[in-house]
């Protein structure tokens, strides 16, 4: 439609564009600028060139953080996709029991990370946790799930799976429900059994929804912070120091604005490459958002 005046569209867009630019686009540039300075928030900033970048890549520190964060994300994505698919297949039928399951699983996705983190800390507590005692009862009590450096990251990922499964379940469920029943009927007439129909009808039809849910969860988990800050503070022995938590530590605990900014710049480009995957999944699934 033709706007009534040439200025109208811009007046309508101005607040949105100004705020988005100020809080999402300009900050990336500012981070790039600040990353060239050494600054402790107290004394005057000092230009140091690429020294901050050299400092964060030294001794493989940055690589370790990036790989650790990716490992956490991949664990969360595989866990949520597997349990999300199983649950979507389970609850894709009528009945109050199944809608109750749907609601209780999805509720974990809706509530605060703080609540989920504190809840699981209680359950996993070394002395009084329900899960700890359960594991001990079946003879698996040797490992402190949050205290052992090898176990801590998978344990955090398991909490993430519990929290985020509801999301992939709902996305996959709507994928399941959009498969025309005639496809299954045709395959059944051709003599395909339940398993063959699942492999050759259900799974291919679900692929776009699955790609969308998986990449979205990947991007979300790559930004994990709350669960780290509350449950482990990056420990034990840095085993759960994920990317955003590392940035947080640099600026608020070590007062190194320059290094925090350099990490932010790297983080932004890593996210951008993950988001590119997500956009590809988005366009292949034909979703419009």
């Amino acid at each position, binding site marked *: 439609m033709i706007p009534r005046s040439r200025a109208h569209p811009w007046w309508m867009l101005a607040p*949105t564009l100004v705020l988005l630019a100020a*809080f999402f686009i300009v900050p990336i540039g500012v981070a790039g600028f600040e990353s060239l300075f050494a600054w402790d928030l107290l004394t005057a900033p000092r230009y140091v060139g690429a020294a901050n970048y050299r400092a964060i890549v030294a001794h493989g520190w940055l690589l370790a953080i990036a790989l650790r964060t990716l490992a956490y994300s991949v664990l969360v994505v595989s866990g949520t996709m597997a349990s999300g698919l199983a649950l979507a297949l389970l609850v894709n039928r009528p009945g109050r*029991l199944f809608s109750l399951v749907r609601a209780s699983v999805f509720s974990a996705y809706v509530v605060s990370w703080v609540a989920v983190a504190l809840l699981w800390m209680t*359950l996993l507590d070394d002395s009084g946790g329900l899960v700890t005692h359960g594991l001990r009862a079946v003879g698996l009590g040797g490992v402190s799930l949050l205290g052992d450096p090898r176990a801590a990251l998978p344990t955090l990922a398991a909490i993430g799976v519990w929290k985020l499964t509801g999301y992939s379940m709902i996305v996959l469920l709507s994928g399941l429900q959009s498969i025309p029943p005639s496809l299954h009927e045709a395959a059944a007439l051709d003599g395909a059994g339940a398993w063959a129909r699942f492999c050759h009808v259900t799974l291919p039809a679900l692929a776009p929804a699955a790609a969308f849910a998986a990449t979205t969860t990947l991007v979300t988990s790559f930004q994990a912070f*709350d669960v780290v800050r509350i449950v482990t503070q990056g420990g034990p022995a840095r085993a759960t120091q994920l990317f955003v938590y590392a940035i947080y530590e640099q600026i608020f605990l070590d007062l190194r604005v320059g290094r925090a900014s350099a990490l*932010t710049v790297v983080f932004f480009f890593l996210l951008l490459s993950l988001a590119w995957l997500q956009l590809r999944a988005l366009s292949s699934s034909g979703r419009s958002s």
Partner: protein
Amino acid sequence: MAAASGIELVGAVVVNAARLRGLWRVTAFVAAAAWFVPYLWMVATSFKTLPEIVANPIALLPKRIDLGAYREVMSAMPVARSMVLTAAMATAIATAQIVLALPAGYALAKLHFVGRRVAFGVVLACLLVPAPATFVPVFLFFAKTHLVNTMTALVLPFAASSLGTLFVRQALLRVPDEIIEAARMDGAGEATVVYRVLAPMIKPTLVSLFLVSFVFHYNDYFWPLVMTTDDTVRTLPLGVALLREQGTGARWHIVMAGNVVLLAPVLALFAITQKHLMRAVRG
């Protein structure tokens, strides 16, 4: 013989189907338990007393309902104040997002003008930049302008939402132009067209948008944590997380009581608005 085996076959199929249904139900119970038991454990623990927890940490039920942990939470943090503050913050953000997304989405969906593709591109690009990638420079900016520890630092960065703008645009694309033309013929100004004519037509989208935004920001831990340094604007999730940091040892009953306080309103809202939230997620 043939008839008998036929009957047997039908019988076997029926039994199998019934067994299968039973199996599905059992699986459903197990799945529900995996998500329900942690909640029940939380509520049960919140009613326990410290000696009870020390004596038998894994007792599923408290001996009797003791509200001591809730009293401790009330004295450790200003619960009502935090809750009002958090709800006010989340309401302000969700409202601002809708008020701003409506005209922006309208311009992007319905108006032809030079630069529309660029404007659309800017909105789309912001979708790729989450808060964890901006908090360092934004914190520095608010520190410089003395806005750390203010409602402004909590609300303003989220007052415009790229996702919300895109959702509104998407919904408006489905509204026929004739409706806007008719409204203009009737002498409606653009503000009337946007807020009085179009907004009611895409109400389901706006309701979902409001709920998702409200719940997200009510729950949010990250942004209030990095933008506040003292108690003046401490939101509920921050206060509850602090309950854990304040003491050591088996204070789980207090932490879980705080958790119940944090979760109950959100779960109640979820129970009422489940359909809207699920639709928003399905996209």
